[in-house]
């Protein structure tokens, strides 16, 4: 501790800069983690956080809710399957909506509207405020948009028909396609369509929400439904969110970024300590020559690595806690505790492993070099 600490105190700038660099990298990693999760949540949160355990698309809709249309005979086929206890029809469309809470002449916004036949098969799963809609004048909005004129009590107007809806509840993390999202009853959805186009008939469902029969797991129900017809594409709700088009690509891109950062942190600390180990080789050689056990010098090195990593992690997480809130470009950001824990562990282990290269150099020092004055280990 003596050596490690004294050296760091005498080279505050050098170690301070390293801690700052590690802290910045840690912050960037965590921030991007929040960005990824926020992005995916605003993409597909409504799928993951709707109430049906299993969703059934039509195969040719390629897992895009709006592109899938389920005919009545397919609906009936699914409903007859013994693994299915109940079927709820789900519709989804994009509407132009004016949030009147922002003023009568507020800018209209493109809004995802999800209509559910049964609240527990396609309705919002987690309400952070209010209640589910009970009539054709009400809607639940995604909580991320509350401030944008979609708070409980706010009224929104569907364009061009002029049908008005009152927000009666907020659903957690329930956006679809990075747009404000409304959950309404099936009848409300039909009324909204009719207000836009009086000639439109009753809409066909875009997907079916399934409640598996008692004793049947979601996975079993998925398999049973998929076996009914090649036209049916059943998924658990998590799979529906994960396998929506684009999600895998987003994850892949971020994975590359994380991989790079995950390497950069140990690389930076490893190189730093390797360089200073080289630089102070004469001093280390002297210490070995006057009887310092090599293990003591390695311990001193590891203490410094631990202090640098610890300091960097604290600084990075602190910065992240301060800045990972609010939203950028419509994507809500949030402090991700799991990500913090995972990255703290990963980077600590990686940093310590990278320090082993320096430790090897320390162990290789030959005290005899002190007698020649060459001092530097080969």
């Amino acid at each position, binding site marked *: 501790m*003596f*050596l490690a600490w*004294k*050296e760091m105190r*005498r*080279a505050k700038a050098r170690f301070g800069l390293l801690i700052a660099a590690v802290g910045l990298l840690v912050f960037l990693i965590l921030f991007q983690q929040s960005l990824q999760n926020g992005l995916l949540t605003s993409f597909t949160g409504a799928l993951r956080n709707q109430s049906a355990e299993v969703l059934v698309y039509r195969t040719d809709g390629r897992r895009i809710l709006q592109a899938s249309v389920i005919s009545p005979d397919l609906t009936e086929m699914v409903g007859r399957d013994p693994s299915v206890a109940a079927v709820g029809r789900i519709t989804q469309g994009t509407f132009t909506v004016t949030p009147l809470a922002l003023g009568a002449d507020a800018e209209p916004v493109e809004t995802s509207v999800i209509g559910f036949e049964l609240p527990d098969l396609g309705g919002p799963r987690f309400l952070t405020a209010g209640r589910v809609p009970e009539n054709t004048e009400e809607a639940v909005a995604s909580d991320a948009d509350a401030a944008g004129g979609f708070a409980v009590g706010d009224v929104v107007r569907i364009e061009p028909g002029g049908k008005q809806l009152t927000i009666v509840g907020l659903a957690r993390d329930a956006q679809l396609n990075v747009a404000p999202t409304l959950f309404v009853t099936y009848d409300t959805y039909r009324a909204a369509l009719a207000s836009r186009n009086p000639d439109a008939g009753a809409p066909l469902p875009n997907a079916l929400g399934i409640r598996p029969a008692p004793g049947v797991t979601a996975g079993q129900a998925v398999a049973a439904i998929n076996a009914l017809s090649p036209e049916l594409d059943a998924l658990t709700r998590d799979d529906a969110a994960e396998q929506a088009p684009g999600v895998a690509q987003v994850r892949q891109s971020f994975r590359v970024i994380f991989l790079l950062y995950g390497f950069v942190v140990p690389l930076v600390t490893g190189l730093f300590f390797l360089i200073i180990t080289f630089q*102070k080789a*004469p*001093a280390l*050689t*002297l*210490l*070995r*020559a*006057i*009887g*310092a*056990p*090599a293990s*003591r010098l390695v311990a001193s090195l590891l203490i410094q690595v631990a202090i640098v990593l610890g300091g960097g992690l604290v600084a990075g997480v602190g910065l992240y806690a301060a800045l990972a809130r609010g939203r950028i470009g419509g994507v809500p950001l949030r402090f991700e505790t799991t990500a913090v824990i995972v990255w703290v562990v990963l980077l600590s282990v990686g940093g310590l492993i990278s320090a082993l290269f320096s430790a090897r150099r320390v162990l290789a020092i030959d*005290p*005899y070099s*002190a*007698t*020649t*004055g060459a*001092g530097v280990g080969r």
Partner: protein
Amino acid sequence: MNEQDGLTGDGFTEHAPAQGWGPALIMEKARKVYPMADSEVVALDDADIVVEADEMVALVGPSGSGKTTLCSIAGGILSPTSGRVVVGGVDISTFGPKQLTRVRRELVGFVFQSVNLVPFLTARENLLVVDELGRRTGAPARRRADQLLEELGLADRAKNLPGQLSGGQRQRVAIGRALMNDPELVLFDEPTSALDTKLGMAVMELIRDEMKSRGIAAIVVTHDERITQFCDRSVHMEDGRVL
């Protein structure tokens, strides 16, 4: 500490005699051979030397004659290829690296030719580090360090880093460092080579006073005949042999 260094009961702790009892160094037929590609270098050729407990010996000889090699073996920095080496009553001839590390830490003091101080430690800390690496006695070590710095005329430089000290002051700190562990034998490898003549003489006087007042044995390697007058006797070396 014993266990960690691989020194058990038959190590030097029990056999180490009290200071001033028996020779500080006995070398018998100590030999150091460096095998080279198609020949070998005999750096030390069956050297015999005895340094009494309070004796100060000048080691003189041309460059490459094996002076540093002899000191390194005597101080447990190098292992001899063959021969017997006894330091402060402890036979270190067959000691392994960990045991030799302990010999250096507890039995011997070193003042090297060039790098002698840790640059990021103050003068006082360069003395205290000896205690930190070893027994960690704390307060007694701090008292000892302050006393040594006082004796060496460095009391007002205790908080200076080596870079803020003159060559002579640095060498005096190194002497203090070598005495911190209360050694049986101190090895000085050309302690004045980096100093001008006048300063060199002053440092030699200091070394002599410190050794004699403590009754510690010393070997002083030198090229300079004027240095030998500070020592009790001179030993000459040539081609790895003690003459």
